C-alpha cells in the first residue's frame, strides 16, 4: 500500500511563498488528468484488482491525494470532488448492511457502477492509444501541402511512457520524505517565484539533459523551493518546454528539454486548461 502523503496541516506554515506564487496562472489539475486517472493510478500503485477494489483504503488514499494537491496549491477541479463524494458514498454503502433485496434478485455490489466506469475508461484509453499509433503511421506519408507539418514532432519513435501527474506527485512525495532533513523555511521574506525557478530548471537542463526528476528537485534546499520547483515543472510540461518520461511504469522519471523550442501551436492544450475549472 502506498504511504499517506505528509500531513497537509504543516503545509501552510512551511510553504507560504509557494502558496502565493504571484506570477503565472494557477495550475488546474484537470488539465493533466481526471479523477479516473487518479483512481487507476492508485489501483496500479497498490497492485489491486479493478474488480475488487478495497474501497476504504482507496477512498483514504484518494482523499490524501486531494489534500496533497491542495497543499501544492494545485487547483483541484470540481470533477475530483464529485468522485470523492462517489467514493465516500460507495464506502458507506459497503459498511452498512445491504437493504433486503427483492426475492430472486442478487443485490448489486455498490462498486459495480464504478468498476464499469473504470473499465469503460480503460477501453477508451486503449482506443485513444491506437488512434495515436494510427496518427503516427499516417504522418509518415507526406501529402502535398502538408510538408511543413509534422503532427508528432519529436514524439515520433518514442517508446518511452508519458508520465502522469500522479507519477510526478508520487515521486515528489518520495523526495520530500527522503529529504526530511531539508532545512525548514527560514522566513527572510525572500520570494521564490515560479518564473525564476522555471529559468533555473531550463538552465539546469541545458547543461545536461535528461535529468532525473528527483535529483533535480533534491538540488533545492528547502521544502518551499521544492514545491515551487514542482509547480515550475508542471508549468513547463503544460507549455511543452520540457517532457517527463519514464522507461517503465513506476520507474525513475526523466526530465528532458523539448527540442526544437516550444511548438508555436500546441493545439487542444488551451482547451484542457479551461475545461475543468
Amino acid at each position, binding site marked *: 500500500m502506498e504511504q499517506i502523503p505528509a500531513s497537509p496541516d504543516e503545509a501552510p506554515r512551511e510553504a507560504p511563498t509557494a502558496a502565493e506564487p504571484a506570477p503565472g496562472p494557477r495550475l488546474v489539475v484537470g488539465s493533466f488528468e481526471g479523477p479516473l486517472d487518479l483512481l487507476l493510478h492508485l489501483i496500479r500503485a497498490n497492485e489491486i484488482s479493478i474488480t475488487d477494489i478495497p474501497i476504504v483504503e482507496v477512498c483514504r488514499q484518494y482523499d490524501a491525494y486531494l489534500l496533497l494537491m491542495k497543499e501544492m496549491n494545485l487547483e483541484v477541479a470540481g470533477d475530483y470532488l464529485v468522485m470523492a463524494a462517489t467514493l465516500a458514498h460507495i464506502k458507506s454503502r459497503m459498511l452498512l448492511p445491504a437493504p433486503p433485496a427483492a426475492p430472486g434478485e442478487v443485490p448489486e455490489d455498490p462498486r459495480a457502477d464504478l468498476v464499469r466506469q473504470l*473499465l469503460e475508461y480503460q*477501453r477508451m484509453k486503449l482506443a485513444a492509444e491506437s488512434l495515436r499509433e494510427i*496518427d503516427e*503511421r499516417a504522418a509518415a*506519408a507526406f501529402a502535398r501541402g502538408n510538408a*511543413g507539418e509534422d503532427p508528432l514532432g519529436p514524439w515520433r519513435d518514442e517508446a518511452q511512457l508519458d508520465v502522469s501527474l500522479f507519477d510526478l506527485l508520487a515521486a515528489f512525495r518520495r523526495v520530500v520524505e527522503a529529504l526530511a532533513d531539508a532545512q525548514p523555511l527560514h522566513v527572510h521574506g525572500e520570494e521564490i517565484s515560479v518564473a525564476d525557478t522555471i529559468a533555473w530548471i531550463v538552465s539546469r537542463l541545458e547543461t545536461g539533459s535528461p535529468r532525473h526528476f528527483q535529483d533535480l528537485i533534491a538540488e533545492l534546499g528547502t521544502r518551499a523551493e521544492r514545491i515551487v520547483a514542482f509547480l515550475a515543472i508542471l508549468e513547463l510540461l503544460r507549455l511543452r518546454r520540457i517532457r517527463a518520461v519514464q522507461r517503465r511504469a513506476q520507474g525513475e522519471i526523466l526530465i528532458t528539454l523539448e527540442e526544437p523550442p516550444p511548438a508555436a501551436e*500546441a*493545439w487542444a492544450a488551451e482547451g*484542457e*486548461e479551461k475545461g475543468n475549472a
Partner: protein
Amino acid sequence: MPEPEVPAGEVAPDSPAEPLPDAPLKSILEAILFACEEPVTPEDLAAILGEDRRPAIEEALAGLEKTYDDPQAGLRVQRIAGGYRITTDPRLAPFVREMVRWRNRRRLSRAALETLALVAYKQPITAPEIQEIRGVNPSSILASLLDHRMVRILGRKKVVGKPFLYGTTQDFLVRFGLDSLDDLPSMEEFDQLLKTEGLDVDPLPFPDAAEEAAPAPEETGP
C-alpha cells in the same frame, strides 16, 4: 515518377506547352492528383471529365494505384476519406523528414485524443455522455476539436437540454490516413487487450459501443 506513359515533350522554357487533348486518362488523373492537396473523389473527377467516363475513371484510378505500388517509386496513390491522393512512400519518411523543417507541428494532446476516440467510436455522442466516461468536462476540448475540424455537430439529441451530438469529419479521416471509419480497429480488439491485462470485461453487463443503439439524431443542423 514510374514509367510515364506520355514522354515529356521537349519544350523550350519560354514557349507555352502544347495541350494534349488526347492524353491518356491515367496521365490526366495522375496530374490532377499531384496538383491537388485535398483527396480527390471519383465524383469530383467525373464532374470535370464527364459523367459518362465514370467507369473509366474508376478503372484508371485503380490502375494508377497499382502503378505506384512499386518499390522503385517514391510516391504512393493512397485511398483516403473516400478519395485518392498522392503521398510519399511512408518507408521514405526518415529521408523526407530530414529535408523538412517542422515549424508548424501540431500534436494532439492525450485528453484531445481520448475525447476524439470517444467521438470516433460512439458517434453520435453528446458532451454529457463524454463526461460520464472521461469524468471530466469535455466542453473546451470539444471546442478545440471543432476549431481544428476534427469533429462536427451532427444535430441535437432529443433529451432534456437538447445537447449537441458530435461526430467526426472528413478532415479527421484525412489526418489519420483512413479511407473510412471502418478502418479503425474494432472495440473487440480493445476488450481482448483488457483481458490480457487481467481485466475480464465479461462478467459485467458491458454495453457494446458498436451495438448500442445510437439515438437517431434530430437533424436540426448546427
